[in-house]
């Protein structure tokens, strides 16, 4: 039986599956990579931690950005490329941004051939919608469930191709052969607790996000950063891990809706932010550079909604990071709401009928999930972790990491989005680079010599490490450590960072790592969520460390990374990726390394001024 490892693990007893290409993670990127490798005729495995089709991709609402030009024929890849680079504050890997802009339309059309049903234009093409930071209406969408459409289409494609899917299997570690090539992935089946190894000629990591290290996050439980951690441990370079996207207003209470994002539209339609004293505190935080265009009295701010020309905007509509910084300051000053956020109040300012008409999905979502009536009471909101721009450093064309045989695509890969991601670019990112990773992995697998095997000693070590929590009679619950990690990251490495807090966080992470080494779990191995969480802790701690270290080093504010003590972008930091890797002794090192240089013809795109009043970059909404 598969879980026969209890009596002393040995590679001979380890259940092993051999493939050409092993894709870890079955969100959009993993599915797309697997489809590509399978279409090339290679034996392809898709391994995922949940059931097939449940990955976090389903949560994406807005759409997939692609310059198809169906709504605005002026749109083309150059404009999309420029929007992406500007949104990422030029920290992006230019080649990735270029490939993304060039290839995403074909990836969308391809989905249509596989059965996706996008909303249509009157002449029968794929309809595209506007989104923050995109100059033209560019997001192919299906109502507000584009992510579901995307993952379902890819899932159905994968199934019809006959790809073998290994569900509810958590991969713990990647193993390398004597030549340094990744040759096996070792993990366990969640349903049985039995250990398993996948040998392969090429491995694709598509494990998504890291959000579960924060208390308030829109991510699902799976987003523990396994891929980031495994790649790091396998010797890969990680870049710009400090660039994490937070949404300033996610629900923090009640529990049932915690992490659900509250669109900026609520503020645009009259919602205001108040602290525990009932004060509209945003008026206290108007930065000088916005003072000229921001109302300085509540009366003027209130008039603006009806008369934009003669009044200035209320400060609730300041840029994202300003709003976030203000909320952060209020909470830290002890004037937050009971659950660590602030109040977003539209109920006392607009009629119930108006709110229902203007914000129907917000209204219904909170009503249905939490019984919260946003027309009757204020919401408790706070900064919420949403997306990580940083990740594994990859070759832009092949998605190859710095470790031979290892590829990465989707959110786990870094570079594409620079320091801030535009809404809609993540779904097209999955498709473009998922396919490229699948192609390159297939090429690599075809060219690779020798038979990959599982190293018995190494796998024994992985197994015994994973089982160690069962052996401890006394020890902390993994849930307690996870909760404390989330509190630490939320309060110290959240949306607004400062040196003293980051240093404190680094110390806290040391302590948490010690506690995690002594974690104890009870019960059996079959579908034991306590144990599963215990095995997730090393990944979460590793990525928390990467984010903290990077955030401490990047002494500037850029995109998703905001330093209170360095509130402005620093041109010098704008020229480098902060690269973290493990050295020979297994210590984490960090070095700034120059960004790849854009060729002149692309650089020229940024010289002409932006002609249209494009909406402020930043991913508001979803």
């Amino acid at each position, binding site marked *: 039986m598969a879980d026969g490892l209890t009596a002393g693990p040995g590679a001979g007893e380890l259940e092993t599956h051999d493939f050409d290409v092993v894709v870890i993670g079955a969100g959009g990127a993993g599915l797309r990579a697997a489809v590509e490798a399978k*279409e090339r*005729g290679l034996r392809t495995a898709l391994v995922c931690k949940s059931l097939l089709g449940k990955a976090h991709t389903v949560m994406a609402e807005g759409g997939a950005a692609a310059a*198809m*030009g169906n709504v605005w*024929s002026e*749109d083309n890849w150059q404009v999309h490329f420029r929007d992406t680079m500007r949104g990422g504050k030029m920290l992006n890997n230019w080649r990735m941004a270029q*490939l993304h802009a*060039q290839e995403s*339309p074909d990836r969308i059309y*391809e989905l249509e051939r596989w059965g996706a049903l996008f909303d249509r234009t009157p002449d029968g093409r794929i309809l595209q919608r506007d989104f923050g930071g995109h100059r033209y209406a560019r997001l192919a969408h299906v109502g507000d469930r584009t992510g579901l459409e995307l993952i379902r289409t890819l899932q159905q494609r994968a199934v019809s191709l006959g790809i073998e899917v290994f569900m509810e299997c958590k991969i713990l570690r990647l193993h390398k052969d004597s030549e340094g090539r990744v040759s096996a992935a070792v993990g366990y089946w969640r349903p049985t607790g039995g250990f398993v190894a996948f040998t392969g000629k090429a491995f694709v990591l598509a494990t998504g996000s890291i959000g579960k290290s924060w208390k308030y996050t829109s991510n699902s439980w799976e987003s523990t950063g396994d891929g980031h951690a495994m790649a790091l441990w396998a010797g890969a370079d990680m870049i710009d891990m400090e660039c994490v996207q937070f949404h300033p207003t996610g629900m923090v209470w009640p529990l049932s809706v915690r992490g659900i994002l509250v669109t900026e539209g609520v503020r645009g339609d009259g919602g205001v932010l108040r602290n525990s004293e009932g004060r509209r505190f945003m008026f206290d935080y108007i930065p000088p550079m916005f003072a000229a265009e921001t109302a300085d009295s509540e009366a003027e701010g209130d008039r603006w909604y009806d008369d934009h020309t003669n009044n200035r905007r209320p400060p609730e509509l300041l840029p994202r990071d300003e709003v976030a910084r203000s909320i952060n300051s209020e909470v830290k000053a002890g004037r937050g709401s009971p659950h660590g956020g602030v109040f977003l109040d539209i109920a006392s300012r607009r009629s119930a009928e108006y709110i229902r008409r203007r914000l129907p999905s917000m209204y219904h979502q909170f009503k249905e999930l939490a019984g919260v009536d946003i027309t009757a009471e204020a919401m408790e909101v706070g900064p919420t972790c949403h997306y990580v721009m940083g990740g594994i450093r990859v070759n832009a064309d092949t998605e190859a990491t710095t470790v031979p045989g290892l590829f990465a695509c989707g959110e786990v890969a870094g570079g594409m989005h620079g320091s801030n991601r535009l809404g809609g670019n993540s779904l097209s990112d999955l498709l473009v680079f998922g396919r490229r990773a699948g192609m390159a992995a297939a090429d690599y697998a075809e060219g690779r010599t020798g038979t990959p095997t599982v190293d018995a000693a190494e796998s024994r070590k992985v197994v015994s490490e994973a089982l160690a929590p069962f052996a401890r009679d006394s020890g902390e619950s993994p849930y307690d450590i996870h909760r404390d990690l989330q509190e630490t990251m939320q309060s110290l490495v959240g949306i607004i960072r400062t040196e003293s807090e980051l240093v404190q966080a680094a110390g806290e992470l040391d302590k948490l790592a010690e506690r995690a080494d002594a974690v104890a779990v009870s019960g059996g191995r079959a579908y034991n969520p306590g144990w599963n969480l215990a095995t997730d802790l090393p990944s979460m701690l590793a990525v928390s460390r990467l984010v903290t270290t990077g955030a401490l080093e990047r002494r500037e504010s850029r995109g998703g990374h905001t330093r209170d003590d360095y509130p402005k972008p620093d041109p010098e930091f704008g020229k480098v990726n902060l690269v973290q890797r493990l050295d020979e002794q297994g210590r984490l090192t960090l070095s700034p390394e120059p960004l790849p240089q854009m060729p002149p013809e692309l650089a020229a795109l940024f010289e002409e001024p932006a002609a249209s009043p494009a909406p402020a970059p930043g991913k508001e909404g979803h």
Partner: protein
Amino acid sequence: MACCRVDRTGRHPGGPGGSEPEKEDKSGVSTIDDVKPIPVTIGGVRGGPAVRTLRRDPWWKSPAFTFVVLTLFVAYTVWAVFQNADYFVGLSQHRDLISPLYSPCIVGSCVPGSHGSFLVLHWWMLTPALIGLSGPGLFRSTCYYYRKAYYRSFWQSPPGCAVADGHKRYTGESRFPLILQNIHRYAWYVAIAWNVILTIDAIMAYRLPGDGGIGVSVGSLVLTANAAALWMYSLSCHACRHVTGGHVNEFSKAPIRHRLWKVVSKLNAIHMQFAWISLFVVVIADAYVRMVAAGWFTDPKLF
């Protein structure tokens, strides 16, 4: 409109710009010919307690109500059918009212005046309601809504959602006799013909022979309501929804059928209500005609 045909690298071989065939994969499924049965494991151990249901809400109320009402309806209908009398109000009462259960009256046993010149089955001496009921009965008994209602309340298969089926074996509508439910489409065609007849009956009911010629009586309104309810019931039918437009795959190329389909779809959403309303109205119409024919009272002329 200029689209997006720009110089673009990395075009997928099967991507836009070419209609070359998909790369075929040997283990995949592309057409129905590729479908191979995959064994499904059966007999696994299930979780939860071995009880009929864990529901605590009064789920049995709705099937019980359906059971009672449908039983009463069937009992009344059987009685009315075999009574074989008092189904026609004719010249002697200055009316032309026929019970919907007995229309069309085209057999030898029909009372004089009830059959016009359409007496076709001279040899039939059983109750004419057996003919009158055949079409609507077939339609109603194979109706998708009533199937749900009686499978749940009579056949207990299942009695309620997440409540155990009352039967050990189950083959659904895949075998004889229930495979005959598939004739619902024809039953619908037949029902439409019956609706035409009952509509003519309703129109004829406005003739008040010897009582002013043409006028409105309660009886004529009752038969009109009956015809209207039956039309709504049969036009909201799922088979109607399919033949009017449901079978179309590209609505944009069949705008008229699309429009029809949309109308029928709206009605279809309240098919259940029409099913019940028309059931009650038929009973009321039959009972009304019956009472007038039996001489309990005369059909009041309104104007």
